[in-house]
């Protein structure tokens, strides 16, 4: 039996105002799996995947990511070890505006992994051409379109060879005609066997790429199904309601 990459056990998180963002979440993410997380806005999707790389702490429960177990008050060292091995792509890209595209991608390999510059730059160029934007290497983030910036962000998180990639609504901030270029890049990654947890509202992407779909509402996991079941014949009433709303 292979160990899962993420296994969460009864995670609970409350924000200071008493709002329960995660309500007893237990789940696993297996190696080479693409897991899509769906749910209405405010249901706790972001909070969930942000606990996976320690950007959010939790109040009770247990979490194991890439073989490292963390509790409610984890050591910095452990959290950083997880972050080195788990990549994250944000809705707003969050590229570093003062660095060129190439520098954005090579900064972590050079400073965190202590790779030499030439090696890091070669790898970065390779990733950029994989994303189809090798011509932009010398430019700065604000010179790029949203879709290009998001592909840079993906390349940046790939540059440290992560074992798991987390995506928080990677296409929600894009113009509609730019969405596909990012989704295509993600499809390719999935084909190459990358383990991914993707929060998204893109139904076609989920249908095509996801191995499983997790549906959340009010901080709880309502349903976990294969995309086939979830989109055609969801088990739960709430899931069906949600699907009706977004497909309409």
């Amino acid at each position, binding site marked *: 039996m292979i160990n899962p990459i993420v296994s969460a056990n009864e995670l609970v998180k409350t924000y200071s105002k008493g709002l329960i963002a995660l309500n007893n979440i237990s789940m696993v993410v297996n190696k080479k799996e693409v897991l899509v997380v769906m749910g209405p806005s405010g249901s706790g999707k972001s909070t969930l995947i942000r606990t996976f790389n320690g950007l959010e702490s939790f109040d009770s429960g247990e979490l194991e990511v890439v073989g490292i177990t963390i509790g409610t*008050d*984890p*050591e*910095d060292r452990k959290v950083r070890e997880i972050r080195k091995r788990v990549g994250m792509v944000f809705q707003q890209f969050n590229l570093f505006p003062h660095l060129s595209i190439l520098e954005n991608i090579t900064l972590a390999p050079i400073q965190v992994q202590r790779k030499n510059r030439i090696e890091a730059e070669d790898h970065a160029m390779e990733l950029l051409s994989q994303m189809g934007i090798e011509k932009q290497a010398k430019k700065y983030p604000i010179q790029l379109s949203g879709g290009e910036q998001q592909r840079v962000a993906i390349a940046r998180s790939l540059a440290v060879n992560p074992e798991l990639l987390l995506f928080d609504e990677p296409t929600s901030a894009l113009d509609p005609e730019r969405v596909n270029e990012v989704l295509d890049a993600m499809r390719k990654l999935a084909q190459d066997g990358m383990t991914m947890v993707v929060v998204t509202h893109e139904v076609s992407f989920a249908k095509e790429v996801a191995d499983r779909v997790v549906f959340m509402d009010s901080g709880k996991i309502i349903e976990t199904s294969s995309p086939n079941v979830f989109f055609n014949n969801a088990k739960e009433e709430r899931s069906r309601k949600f699907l009706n709303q977004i497909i309409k």
Partner: protein
Amino acid sequence: MKGLRSLYIQVGIGLVLFILFAVLINNLSINLIRTNLNFSFKWLYRPASFALAEHPLPYSPSDSYAWALFIGWLNSLKVIFISLIISTLIGFITGIARTGRNPLLKIIAASYITLIRQTPLLLQLMFWYFVGFLSIKGTLIFPNERILVLSNQGIKIFGDINLTAEYSSLVIGLTVFTGAYIAEVVRGGINSVPRGQWEAFRSVGLNENSGVLKIIIPQALPAILPGLTSQYLNLAKNSTLAIAVGYADIYAISDTIINQTGRAIEGFILLLLSFLFLNLIISLMMDFFNEIITKYQKV
């Protein structure tokens, strides 16, 4: 786990700071014992035995150091509050001229601002005092003796208000200096109002001057106030350059007292306290204005 570590770090840093202060205080007390000056404020009751040219309340050299300091404080307030009002007027007029349409006014405002901001205040104060007042020969009369008389003794207004040359040059220097800085604050505030507002008041037929005064400035005020507050605080601090023109403000008097008594530490603490108090007054005043403005704008 994490909490414990940060506790250790803080205790460590606290220890280092503590040792540093202990060494400094130790040196200080050794030095004070050497010079026979124990830390105390009793000397405040001893007679000051220096004369003051200007005192809004009765004062003679036989009065105590404490009373002399208080007089200094009043002298400072006298300068600060008058300068505060006049520099606000200058600042608003210049700031509006700077953003207005008249190119002549624009150029004049811009050159005034750059000339004042790019030269030291101290130099400007000396200029007003030595060139502006002390080198007047005889008296200059505008338009007759009843209204305004300038001489190297100062300014005489309406025949019976006498302002000394020291006081006048200090107030003029501070207002001209602070006015230029306030003008820049006002300009920033006006520029933060959307351009559409100008078209709006023009389209309803308001003329340029009343449009700016009635429509633009009220909208710019919230953006102007914070900058204005810090300019007022600067004005209060800058007023201590009074010593350069020989005006007896709080700092000049503290300086004299410390030179007489050698009580540097105590003098420093008193000066610090009086400035904290002054800053508090100005901040409270500005909070009060801010409240009025927000209330007025909600209605």
